[in-house]
């Protein structure tokens, strides 16, 4: 990097700066400086600080004592923290797998036969994305309540035996919360994938039809490979929201019943604000961001390899 920099500063810069090699000078760095300062102050510095704090025992107010890796040992041995990590990973099914599959199917159907109502369908499906997640949680808590609309509906169609306070059930609370995640992220996946499908060259579909491919084969052989890049984006975004989920769980169950729906986000919050174990909370947050980075890298790699 140094060589290229010194070259641009030298006399021969005009000659050496061939079109194949864009020149890079200090002036270029100046352009990114404002953004870098903001990014450094509000993203990188707090992030580094939280990593730094994870090596201390600190109650958030008084003097801290050095903890070394003690907090990390707790993260990997404390049963409650492991339950939270496991629950967070499990949410990938509800936040990523289901929404990408559902979004792909809906997008393919809408794209194949645009009708008058499809704009409305698209808007309705995307609506959960623009609602604040706290509001989403409050609405679903009402829907799932013992005498809420879902149970009333079940009773009305003769399934009263199945009706229950969903969020208070040790078996059903976790999938019930997961379904909310699916409801929220499906719209986003659909929009991303729809944009991808509309970019696919129509002649590919035409060729497929000439080769006597039915709608399902067209979907598998033209649509899915055509939106691979969009699938990677959708999976990355939703995976982060699965592992970093907080709002919905906090509002609907607070992690209960028992510890059935506890996720790292809620636990980090409680460690800081309830039990004042800021160091341990930062250690869990650091482990969580490392896990997220690994997953994002894996998805990115899978997307590139298959491209």
């Amino acid at each position, binding site marked *: 990097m140094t060589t290229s920099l010194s070259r641009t500063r030298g006399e021969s810069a005009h000659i050496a700066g061939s079109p194949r090699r864009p020149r890079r000078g200090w002036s270029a760095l100046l352009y990114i400086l404002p953004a870098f300062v903001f990014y450094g102050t509000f993203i990188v510095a707090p992030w*580094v600080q939280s990593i730094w704090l994870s090596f201390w025992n600190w109650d958030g107010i008084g*003097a801290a004592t050095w903890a070394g890796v003690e907090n990390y040992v707790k993260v990997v041995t404390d049963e409650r923290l492991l339950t939270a990590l496991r629950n967070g990973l499990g949410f990938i099914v509800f936040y990523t797998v289901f929404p990408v599959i559902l979004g792909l199917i809906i997008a393919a159907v809408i794209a194949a036969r645009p009708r008058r109502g499809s704009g409305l369908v698209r808007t309705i499906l995307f609506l959960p994305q623009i609602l604040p997640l706290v509001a989403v949680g409050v609405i679903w808590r009402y829907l799932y309540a013992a005498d809420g609309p879902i149970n009333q509906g079940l009773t009305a169609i003769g399934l009263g035996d199945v009706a229950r306070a969903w969020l*208070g059930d040790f078996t059903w609370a976790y999938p019930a919360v997961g379904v909310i995640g699916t409801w929220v992220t499906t719209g986003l996946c659909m929009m991303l994938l729809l944009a991808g499908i509309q970019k696919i060259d129509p002649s590919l579909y035409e060729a497929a039809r000439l080769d006597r491919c039915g709608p399902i084969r067209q979907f598998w052989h033209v649509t899915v490979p055509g939106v691979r890049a969009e699938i990677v984006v959708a999976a990355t975004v939703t995976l982060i929201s699965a592992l970093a989920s907080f709002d919905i769980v906090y509002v609907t169950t607070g992690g209960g019943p028992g510890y059935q729906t506890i996720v790292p986000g809620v636990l980090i919050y*409680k460690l800081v604000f309830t039990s004042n174990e*800021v160091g341990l909370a930062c250690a869990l947050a650091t482990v969580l961001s490392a896990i997220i980075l690994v997953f994002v890298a894996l998805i990115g790699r899978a997307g590139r390899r298959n491209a």
Partner: protein
Amino acid sequence: MQRRTRLVLAPLAASTLLGIALTACAPGATTNDSAADIEASTELTTDEITLTLMSTPESGAATEATIAAFEAEHPNIAIEYSQTNYDDYNQSVNLNLSGDQSPDIVLLNAVANTVKNKLVLPLDDYAGLYGWDDFFPANQLNQWRVAEDGSTLGDGGALVAAPAGFSLVGVYYNKALAAQLGITAPTSLAELEASLEKASSAGALPVQLGNAEGHAAFIVQLLGQGEAGADDANAWAFGHEGETFDTAANRTAAETLAAWQKAGYLGDATTANGTDLQGAVDNFIAGKGLFLVDGIWDAGKIGDGLGESAGFLPFPGANVTGIGTSVAYAISAQSEHPNEAAAFLDFLRSSEASEQQFAQGFMPNDPTVAVAEEGTLQGDIVASWAKVAEADGLVAFNNNATATMNDTLKAGTQQLIAGQLSVDDFLASIQDDWAKAHAG
């Protein structure tokens, strides 16, 4: 590939350096405590001064009116009132107290981190000057006495807050439903259990329970302390050395809760765990449930909803006890006017302030202002409070025994009534949490 790695690493390294540069070395702040340098006195300044007070809408309901009465008596002292909701308040109170703009008087909901870090002033000098110890029954002040370690409460510790009014947890009952079932207000545990049995066999729901926030913990505590007595129960709740939750009384209490669940007295466990306290109050008002174990903070709503049918009792047991705490105010260690702030704390037990507290549904510091018609819900509550005070039976909330105890009790009781946890494991999980905070 190598070039690419370097491109990623260079900014990363630069950012890390920047981050470290922006980060202080050892976390934690030191605060000044100007109030400690001012000698305690009942002589107040004649200068024009302004004090600031922070509270929450629920606890501070009576405080604004009390401030007006105080200002009328002390024209040179103005008190600026501000409030934030309960959750936000608890998260920010310590930051406010340790910051540069600390309020003079703060609502204290828990001693934990605030007292440990010496953010509030010990009030013993003022208690002596104003005679608070003679005025309040011992158990009413003991909740705000904190030992040197910053976590053990009770007799002998430094007083850190003064009460403004009290809450009480007892048993609401539906008088109309009781009359219909031929049940009279139970005065002993045996009578209570007989009523539960009678209601159950008549097809009525005996106990309305909303346990989404863990309120079955109240039932366990009341059953346990009714058997063991207030002093034993407080010793554990206050974190006294060598105490344990695994006592015969608490074991019986947890077993009783589980047995009530099995007998169907609490309704369906999933429904209880999926219903929050306000949902349970709504159900109770709608006539679902003969009894509801809850605090007097819901008395207004229940009185409005059930009218003459609403009744209240102290939880029946071998000992007359109640769970309760006070809305309490403390003085910031950074306050420049601690004497004037203490004068306001003393004003909280005046009849003007007490009347305001009672009007807002709290039991007042001055019990003589608590007058209500006999037979009404308010009358029942006043009578219950008098009985508990007479027996010195007020016990601090087990939920406040440690910073995390509320969560532990919530999860534990949810698992207990759903049959996911044995009584042994339930008791152990509660004691584990306690031992982490009170080991030393």
